[in-house]
């Protein structure tokens, strides 16, 4: 078996193992299915009841933001699971097997991608119930979902890197929350970023999360002609910039995570 074949076969074995774990662990499954449902209902009804947007329903405006928020939040499962495995001896077992060393991380991120598909499907269904609609062509919508999944996959490698650097589940959780909350809320997810005061507006406009949300709104046809178009450069080219972000994250964090994995397990 050549190296690539080996890496793929071993990655599939690890991904299957993780998929089984998710099915058996109620806490993980809850995160994948329950959290998206709660997010959609809570944010649509709580904020939607207060805010009137010109030319667009709040459901249409909100859902792309909730998709992205859920992706950013559930990518943390990748990192969290790795810290748990690090604490047990399971990585030692893997490292004494003649398997491809990269398979542990590729398997983990691939199974988390499958999990992300599940949570996006859940959100789409609940979103449709609360009045969200796609107003674009099927091709554009498909590109929208692919773009979300690509970003989700790339972001899993970011949390994997952080997890392998921090090593313990508790520390990882604290750091992840501390980083992901501002990332999600200092964006255009729930408010129009042009309404934010000076420095916050700058941060929100250049936040990759904002770019991804803007791109999703465009691809799902969830924008309003009656609202001012964003003026910041990344938001004016939201779709290509979002794809670029995903590629950059992968290029930087895949090798970094692999290096940290080797270091983390050989202590």
């Amino acid at each position, binding site marked *: 078996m050549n190296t690539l074949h080996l890496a793929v076969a071993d990655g599939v074995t690890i991904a*299957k193992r993780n998929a089984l*774990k998710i099915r058996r*662990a109620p806490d993980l499954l809850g995160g994948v299915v329950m959290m998206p449902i709660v997010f959609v209902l809570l944010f649509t009804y709580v904020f939607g009841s207060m805010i009137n947007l010109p030319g667009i329903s709040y459901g249409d405006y909100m859902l792309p933001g909730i998709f992205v928020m859920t992706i950013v939040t559930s990518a943390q499962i990748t990192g969290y699971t790795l810290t748990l495995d690090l604490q047990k*001896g399971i990585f030692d*077992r893997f490292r*004494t*097997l*003649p*398997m491809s060393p990269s398979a542990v991380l590729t398997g983990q991120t691939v199974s988390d991608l499958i999990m992300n598909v599940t949570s996006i499907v859940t959100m789409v269904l609940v979103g449709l119930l609360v009045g969200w609609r796609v107003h674009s062509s099927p091709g554009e919508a498909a590109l929208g979902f692919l773009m979300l999944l690509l970003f989700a996959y790339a972001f899993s490698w970011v949390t994997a890197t952080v997890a392998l650097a921090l090593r313990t589940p508790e520390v990882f959780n604290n750091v992840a929350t501390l980083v992901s909350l501002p990332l999600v809320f200092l964006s255009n997810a729930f408010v129009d970023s042009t309404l934010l005061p000076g420095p916050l507006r700058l941060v929100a406009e250049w936040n990759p999360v904002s770019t991804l949300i803007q791109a999703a709104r465009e691809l799902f046809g969830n924008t309003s002609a009656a609202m001012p178009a964003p003026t910041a450069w990344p938001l004016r080219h939201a779709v290509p910039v979002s794809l670029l972000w995903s590629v950059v994250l992968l290029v930087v964090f895949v090798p970094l995570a692999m290096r940290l994995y080797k270091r983390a397990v050989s202590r």
Partner: protein
Amino acid sequence: MADAIVAEGLVKRYGDVAALDGVDLTVPEGTVLGLLGPNGAGKTTAVRILTTLLRPDAGRATVAGFDVVRDARRLRAVIGASGQYAAVDDHLTGAENLEMVGRLYHLGVKRSRERARELLERFDLTDAADRPVQGYSGGMRRRLDLAGALVADPPVLFLDEPTTGLDPRARTSLWDVIAELVGAGTTVMLTTQYLEEADRLADRIAVIDRGRVIALGTADELKSQVGGDRIELSVTSAADLAAATRTLAPLAADDLQGDAAALRLTIPATAGTATLSDALGRLAAERITVRDAGLRRPTLDDVFLSLTGQQADAKTADAKTKETVR
């Protein structure tokens, strides 16, 4: 007979601390080497280097002819390793755990499944095969972990404290399995804190302390280094202790150890039980009340006392304390 495991001058440092400070070991094919030592002595570090989990800072080692650094991948195909933390996945069933290991040894789907069933049966886990490991007892987890090490039927096996934390019955049954493997020709390196375990399983024992091999030999050789069996007697008062010391001096050949606080004294059992009854006869003749008497075989503590000249600290006795290597 060829050597299955060869280590020469292995050194591993963590900052200023040398976990291994020049370790040489050889294990001939089909034999068992027991690594004996207190917590932090370097046993686990040695095993981690030989199983490719760690790179040595200096020295070299081969297992089944493969270099631990240069041929790591091929080496992993011919070894099995079972650690002190049972490396099994809680959410998977016993069968799924073993099948996964089989797949990662590249045995193929069908063979992995067959092998998993064989091993579950052999380790008496068939009833629990399809239950998540979460509900397994400590002994069952250890058995499953050991089964995981055997999936590819490896010619060389590394067992890092395989029975630490197990109850006596689980320990004995694990010993039987290991003895059976060795009978079938497997080479085993085993770390342990229990002299009895090494005694039972190992052809040779290497005593490791502070990163060095300080003694190497069969169990009997090590025991004789410690001075062999001793007779231990306790009395009821300090006056009796003094009287007993005088009475037994002729038997003790200048090697009488008294412990005033515990009202206990020990002498070498040069003639085994005959020395014991001789001692008891002499004490009875002097009307000294003996509270407790017995023939004591050397223990791990004695080995350390004798070999290192230092008190085997409390940690050694607490077998459940995990060796810290991280």
